[in-house]
């Protein structure tokens, strides 16, 4: 039954693109991929911009401290099966920003990465190839297995997971708090 649906995965990967403080070079290359010249949509790829409906997370940038908690939150909000693609040298290792006081040197310290795309900036051809690789990995994944950020020590083992708890725990730990008061009235 589900084997039947699995076949269609590769035909409809929806992506979510998150910029964790990059120089925008890689982002522009991603946009170029989606544009008429490289036309990723011919593979059924659309940029959903919404973690809940996305399958592939494209991350650019070296993960600034402000972006940390957001990245984790977005990752947790994506439903399994999902894959993560680190686009550009920054996202892979920190790139030119490596060892700066405000960055975390790449996303794989926080979330499991499936495909690394090198280059500063990553070339569109590379990105397309990387996404192709990501789709191959994605096809092998199971929806039953919950994937959580690397930083989480204990991996929850329940049928139905309340992700809000995990998210708020992560947020407590990793956010540079930017307090925005809630006023109700």
């Amino acid at each position, binding site marked *: 039954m*589900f084997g039947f649906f699995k076949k*269609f995965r590769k035909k*409809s990967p929806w992506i979510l693109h998150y910029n964790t403080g990059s120089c925008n070079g890689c982002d522009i290359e991603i946009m170029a991929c989606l544009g*008429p010249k490289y*036309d990723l949509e*011919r593979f*059924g790829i659309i940029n959903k911009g919404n973690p*809940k409906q996305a399958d592939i997370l494209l991350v650019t940038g070296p993960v600034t401290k402000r972006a940390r908690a957001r990245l984790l939150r977005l990752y947790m909000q994506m*439903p399994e099966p999902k894959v993560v693609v680190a686009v550009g040298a920054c996202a892979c290792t920190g790139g030119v920003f490596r060892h700066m006081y405000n960055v975390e040197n790449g996303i794989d310290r926080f979330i499991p990465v499936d495909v690394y795309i090198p280059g500063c900036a990553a070339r569109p051809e590379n990105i397309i190839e990387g996404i192709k690789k990501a789709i191959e990995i994605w096809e092998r994944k199971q*929806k039953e297995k919950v994937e959580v950020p690397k930083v989480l020590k204990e991996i929850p083992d329940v049928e139905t997971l309340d992700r809000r708890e995990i998210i708020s725990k992560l947020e407590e730990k990793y956010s540079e708090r930017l307090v925005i008061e809630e006023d109700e009235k």
Partner: protein
Amino acid sequence: MKGILFTFALLSPIIGGLIYGLERKFKARMQNRQGPPILQPFYDFFKLTDKRALQVHSFHSLMGIAFFVAAWFAVFALLIGPNILIAIFLHVLALLFFTAGGFSVKSPYSVMGALRELAHILAAEPILVFAAIALYLSTGSWNIEGILTSNTVPILQMPLLFCALVLTVPILLKRSPFDISEAHQEIIGGAEIEYSGLFYEAVYTAKWLEYIFIGVIVFLFGGSNYLLGALLVAATFLFVWLLDNATTRLTIHYMMKFAWGILLPLAAFNIFWVAIWR
């Protein structure tokens, strides 16, 4: 005729999906891209079935499903029911569930989208009602079979109203320049943002039904001349897709002004003129 209409209503999600696939293809070709295959919506559909379901709360998810069921029911009521006016109000009922879902979560984009959806209802519903009245006026029947077998061709009497209806289609389908409630780059889909997996599938499919709904109403303006009706539908959709590619999003105020200041008077004028003229 009843059998055909019933089968059509039964198959309407599939046909709607095909139209959506065509739309994506056409739009891609207009931008000189290759575009996704025509069956792409169904691939998306199958993929969504196989995703792990996430939800904010069950009320919200249920409203998504209710939207799909009610939208399908509205299509049924339009195609086999005895009264197209009722079908139009049933369509509003379906949108009620959609907005209720949007309102029910504490998510800024979702609530914003639901609020904008209300503006869409406000802008588009009177024109749809006018369209039904116009069909009645020229064919003398509220019944789809009566309209399809009458020997008048409504568009010949109602050209202005038809123009207004065509310009309402972007409002109903949420296509640029009136994709305000969906606004993908701005509020990321609006009221549909919090759905995922199976529940998003329901909303995604319900949106295909909108093509059928509006397409059938446009088709009826051909009266018993089915070729003309098909041509009208094709022309309308092509026009809307071209418009979608060629324009940018307008603000909600502009949409209301446009719908109430231009489209409504146009439609009303046409109806009144026909009523007085004969």
